[in-house]
């Protein structure tokens, strides 16, 4: 009797085991399956709609078919370049500070605020750039959009630089200082070069992340159906074009939105794959 109960109990436990384990497998299947399905859809659909015109032509007048997004591609490149020029130095230097001089309360505060800034929704950054640049300057511009993106880059740049600098073995620093180098000299000549690859990859990943940001651009760099000369004029950008074209009524716009999505995502994923490859190789070497 007692034995029967025991085995019943055991059977129950074994069943639960089997059911739950297959359930987790099922979860994995659903989660990755759905995600891969929709991305596959994007690649098939976007690739189909891609043409040479897409890269070389300006958008056609509204409602006419044809044309491309050459100005949006260049616009995105300019916005990213600007964001990098502003965001990376601040982020990198901040990261050096946290990694090398960051044991005090002030560093704790900086770290806390960096996390805070990282958590600020991108649309709020858009409002910030609008009140900070667009309103005082009196016009929408590449500058305003680039600034908004740079603010998004800073916190990530800080944390990734800090992380990679910290990963540099203590022995290296001590060695340099034992040879008589000052702390700042040791950082410049030994620590930063040692962390260089990691930091560079961090920047690449960071750029890939902000490349797809749309919300901070809607009311800073606005949009433009022509080329945007210089830095003081509104500019088109790929993410904003996807947004407007996807919601438009024209079939041709939808197709171009797919093509733009394809281009944008291919770039982002390529950067991610390359960066991860570099990082994993580095991890092997350092071990």
């Amino acid at each position: 009797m007692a034995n029967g109960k025991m085995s019943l109990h055991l059977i129950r436990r074994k069943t639960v085991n089997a059911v739950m384990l297959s359930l987790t497998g099922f979860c994995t299947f659903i989660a990755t399956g759905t995600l891969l399905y929709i991305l596959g859809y994007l690649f098939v659909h976007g690739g189909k709609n891609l043409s040479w015109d897409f890269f070389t032509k300006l958008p056609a007048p509204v409602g006419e078919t044809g044309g491309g997004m050459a100005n949006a591609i260049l616009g995105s490149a300019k916005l990213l370049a600007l964001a990098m020029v502003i965001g990376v130095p601040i982020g990198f230097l901040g990261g050096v500070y946290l990694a090398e001089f960051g044991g005090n309360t002030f560093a704790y505060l900086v770290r806390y605020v960096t996390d805070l800034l990282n958590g600020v929704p991108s649309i709020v950054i858009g409002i910030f750039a609008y009140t900070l640049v667009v309103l005082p300057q009196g016009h929408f511009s590449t500058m305003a959009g680039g600034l908004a993106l740079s603010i998004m880059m800073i916190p990530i740049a800080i944390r990734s630089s800090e992380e990679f600098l910290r990963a540099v073995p203590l022995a290296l620093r001590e060695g340099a200082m034992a040879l008589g180098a000052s702390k700042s000299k040791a950082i410049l000549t030994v620590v930063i070069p040692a962390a260089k690859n990691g930091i560079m990859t961090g920047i690449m990943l960071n750029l890939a992340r902000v490349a797809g940001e749309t919300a901070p651009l809607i009311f800073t760099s606005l949009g433009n159906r022509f080329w945007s000369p210089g830095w003081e004029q509104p500019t088109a950008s790929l993410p904003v074009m996807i947004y407007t074209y996807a919601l438009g009524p024209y079939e041709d716009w939808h197709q171009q939105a797919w093509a733009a999505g394809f281009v944008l995502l291919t770039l982002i994923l390529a950067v991610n794959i390359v960066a991860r490859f570099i990082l994993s190789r580095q991890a092997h070497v350092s071990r």
Partner: protein
Amino acid sequence: MVTLVAALTILAVTALLVYELYVHSALSRHKFGWSFLVTRTWDPVAEQFGALPFIYGTVVTSVLALLLGIPLGVGAAIFLAELAPPKISSGLTFLIELLAAVPSVIFGLLGVFVLIPMLHKIEGPLRSVLGWTPLFQGPFYGVSLLSAGVVLSLMIIPFIISISREVILAVPSDQREAALALGATRWESTWDVVVPYAYKGITGSIFLSLARALGETMAVTMVIGNDPKIVTSLFAPGYSIAAIIANEFAEAPGELYTSALIELGLVLFALTIVVNGAARLLVAGTSSKTGT
């Protein structure tokens, strides 16, 4: 020295951000006071603005995203960390981490053209199973709180999976071995030993995802339906804070209107800070509990 200046810049930028939001929302804050947060009217003609429908839409879609995302995400993380052969696990994890890099606007694009047609197909079955609840009432137009929640869940699942998987992997293997040696099944060792051990990290990943979902803009704007009403049915269209700012900020006529939108931005900012803060507190709390 230079590095200190850079560190100070972060503080300055963040302080300036809060200051700008605060100053530019002054008009609305003075006119409506705290009642802004609990008023459900949004009437641009009468210049009556209340944040409640947007807060509601934001919270409902985010919670829905968590309800769908947590079981799927944590389940998949357990599978990848505990059960799957290492090769498959690292391959899938690589893919999933790539998915976390997909921008919001692309999820919106897919939401409009792939997900909504899919939801139209499962509307019938959903209604026949859950149609008795107030959550699945009324007509379904495609764009809705439900669509926004589902798109959001897809966006946060990669986060939950990759962080949870890492914390589960970090659980020392003697914990598992001890449980197995005592005669526990694989599932029992995972669920009763490993998961509680990793509880803190999993909760952290969930809160991070929540903060992300709350502030998510583009994908939600494209599928939520843009209707500032408070309706219990998930089939109904709604509106989120981020979505109304994206839609109306550049075009809101009148100072008070703009100011109200900026105050919404301030509310969203505060909301994400509270969630991030809560995540920290919670994580600290659980860590001291499991520590003993």
